[in-house]
């Protein structure tokens, strides 16, 4: 019950934050000069444009405008994306699955590799392995992700020809037909039993996902190493060792479980970084997702799309971090829920 109370209180705390985010985003939409531009497209007639002015009350005071804008946002009216020739919400729905698949795979890669590296470093503290891991993870956070993407593309596509240059699947699948029920390629291909397409999709995912995960690996490694070191110094681990349990079992069974708790929080934080990184990665691997859409929008000064993307990311980010905090509270009994 205390957990439930905690969740409810956190949800209530979310309201001022989301309101604040809305105010920031709203401010951005109003600085652009002509706020109506976000809702008007070339295909509209004058009477439609008049309707837009009527609906959003551009001639009224700014706070009134905010209310109407917020109302629109809640009802799914986020403006018109010139880049996608679609309403922003439709464009988001269209491009979200590709980005979601990419981000999830990156998180999996980052967590698995990061936890393994972090644990190994902690166990071999101040040994050469630890130093090498530390330097490598420092390189990880210092690498420009767009540059890494280009280098990986150069090595694995141009030189070695191991992976495709980009895209979500081979062009040949377009002719045989790509199923589109949910938009998630991996799910859709399994739904129709097209395993070739499924594996082709995974094959295309690898290079961008590895690129995207690089920075997160570094962060997860560091946190895992530090929390592992802390846990290894705790009494019960010493006790376990004293009891004569093997190092292996102590590290894997006891220490790991507890050391992973702080790591979960990082994953929430890393999510924001991943979505930012997706903007750069998707552009290079021509991945048809949210990142490429927003990068294209930036190129053509389509700020409505960019701001819509920003609003979406803010919501996702806030929710993911809330979920992570709740999970953290659940996992770690030391966290006071009060």
């Amino acid at each position, binding site marked *: 019950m205390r957990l439930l109370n905690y969740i409810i209180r956190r949800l209530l705390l979310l309201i001022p934050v989301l309101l604040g985010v809305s105010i920031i985003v709203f401010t951005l939409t109003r600085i652009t000069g002509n706020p109506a531009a976000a809702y008007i497209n*070339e*295909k509209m*007639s*004058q*009477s*439609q444009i008049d309707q837009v002015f009527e609906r959003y009350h551009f001639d009224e005071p700014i706070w009134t405008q905010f209310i109407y804008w917020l109302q629109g946002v809640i009802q799914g009216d986020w403006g018109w994306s*010139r*880049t*996608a*020739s*679609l309403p922003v919400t439709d464009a988001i729905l*269209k491009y979200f699955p590709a980005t979601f698949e990419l981000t999830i795979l990156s998180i999996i890669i980052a967590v698995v590799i990061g936890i393994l590296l972090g644990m190994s470093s902690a166990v071999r503290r101040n040994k050469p392995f630890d130093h090498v891991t530390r330097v490598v993870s420092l390189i990880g956070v210092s690498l420009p992700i767009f540059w890494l993407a280009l280098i990986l593309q150069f090595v694995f*596509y*141009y030189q070695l020809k191991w992976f495709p*240059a*980009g*895209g979500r699947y*081979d*062009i*040949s699948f*377009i*002719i045989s037909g790509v199923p589109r029920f949910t938009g998630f390629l991996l799910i859709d291909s399994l739904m129709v039993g097209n395993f070739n397409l499924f594996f082709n999709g995974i094959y295309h995912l690898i290079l961008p996902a590895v690129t995207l995960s690089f920075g997160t690996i570094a962060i997860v490694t560091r946190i895992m190493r530090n929390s592992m070191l802390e846990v290894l110094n705790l009494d019960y681990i010493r006790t376990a060792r004293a009891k004569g349990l093997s190092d292996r079992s102590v590290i894997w069974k006891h220490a790991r479980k507890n050391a992973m708790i702080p790591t979960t929080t990082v994953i929430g934080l890393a999510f924001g970084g991943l979505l930012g990184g997706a903007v750069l990665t998707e*552009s*290079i691997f*021509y991945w*048809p997702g949210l990142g*490429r*859409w927003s990068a*294209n929008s930036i*190129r*053509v*000064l*389509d700020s409505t799309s960019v701001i819509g993307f920003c609003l979406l990311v803010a919501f996702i980010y806030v929710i993911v971090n809330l979920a992570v905090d709740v999970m953290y509270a659940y996992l770690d009994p030391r966290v006071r829920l009060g």
Partner: protein
Amino acid sequence: MEGSEIKPEAAAKGGMNIKLIAIIVVAVLVIAAVGVVLLMGGDDEPEPEATNWLDKGFKLELFYNSGNDVRALACQLMKQGLEALNPGKIDITTTGVEWAQYLELRKNGAMPAMFLGWAPDYADPDNYVQPFYHSAGTYSSMIGYFNSTLDDMIVEAQGILDLDDRAAAYEAMEMDMYEECVFIWTAQATQFHAERSWISGYYFNPMQSGLVYYSFDKPDVAPAGAPSSYDGDTFVMATIDGNPESLDTAVGYETAGGEIMQNVYENLIFYNGTSASELIPVLASEVPTVDNGGISEDGLTYIFHLKEDVKFHDGTDMTSEDVKYSLARALMLNDPHSPVWMVGQVTIPDYYSYDQGSYSGSENATFTPGIPDDVIDAAIWASDDYTIQINLTSAYPAFLYVMAYNIGGVMSKDYVEANGGISYDGFLWMYNHMCGTGPYQFVEWESSNYISMVRYDEYRDGPAAIKNVVIQQIADAATRILLLKAGDVDCAAVPRFQKADVEGVVGINVTQGIGTFNIDFLGLNQALNLTALPNPEKTNVPADFFADKNVRLAFAHAFDYAKYIDSGLKGTAIQPNGPIPMGMFGYSANIPLYDFNMTKAADFLKASDVPAVDAGAGADTVLDMIIARIEI
């Protein structure tokens, strides 16, 4: 106690050395930053009195549409040439602006000079002369050039029925304008196309948008060097990033959508093969002429007889009703961003007094046409099932070419009516659905990804050789080239400056040399709106700077045309002598070219006049200088 910032208590906590390290790091960085900022700036010298722009010098901002590398390079060359005339005094900034912003700046007359390009809609010199030289033209109004004598000449030349007389009229006009130097013509691109050598049937016509897939063929069995994924039934085109505006002939006005329309829809008449002047009948049974009675003696009435037993992709028969419906639909919508003006301005009396079609009511249920039905009915009507007549408001010999443009594509009336007809829903539907008579049927448009088409097996001249066409968007040119080299795609859009990448590669055919009708130019704004300048600190010339002909001529001679064509376009262009491109009717080889000649440029600029009263460059405040330095 007082006088020490750091308290012993804090030092005892181990905070002292932290601060010292911080002080070192901060000091190093601050010194570096101060050094950088100081070294960045140069000293401004007082300007001596000068009566011409060469000695006085000036600051000017040159614009191009960003993303267009070739024009960015043109800006750099112009900058280099001008700055060399008086180093240190002439200061040119080049700025790329996005299309939306560019349109805004253009509307406000806020760009002193800008590099742009123009591609024709229909193969007639009027489609060049009007936008550039007529007072109401797109580009002449952009640069504030108004010349009523010229306007009269343009209107007169439009209607001359005798070809020789008409050509002579355009030559005279261009000769005058060579002296005037209102625009600087930088390049007419020549065609450049790279495809796998197993593809056959490619031909080039400067009036086509993209490729005509009906003529293409590829072997069914994989030729040597083909990848394992080779598919003899599918043509894959790797194209640049960017979605069509629309697939509706009444709306779309660009080449990405134009290419699809050209393969799915058919016009009454179209260009014959590689010829940009000779027309052949397509849906019409013959091209109307005065001799066959299709065009009246006064050039005001056009009668098209249609082929019978032509079927749409939905199986219905194509009749004059469909032709009438397609044109009327476009005129009723009367979208100002669409090419419908080409038809409207010659068929509808007082065309420009009509508004755009509009929707009203809940769910946009009521549609009010831009041009009323009765006005359209008076201009275009189906006299019987297979005859359509169009009345012009004044003689316009180029009208046949207008009918060959995408706007003249014929769509199935039954299909459109079944999907909403002339209503909000109907127009929305036709944005990404098509039903024509062409050799290919539209299949799917996956936004920002690909467009696919499949052949129409019942096509009256026999089905196309290649079954599927996929036009895949790939933003990165290098990737497109690699896919072409690997044989994963059959044809790729290769930027001209990467020509070396595909030339001489085994398995790739490169065709080039024929002139396109695309003209690149530099516009010089004679009525600059000084108050709307986006970066006032980068331009200090008066509003009428370019009204001085000597200034314009100096610019024309300070541009290295050969280097531009060589470096930027890798030789796939020629220097044009005016707006009318080589190969187009009305082109004259007698018009001279401006040469790259720094002496001439300096002489012209020396002959220019600096107005007596300085417009006032605006005194630099200290803050401006600081900001300017940070901004560098």
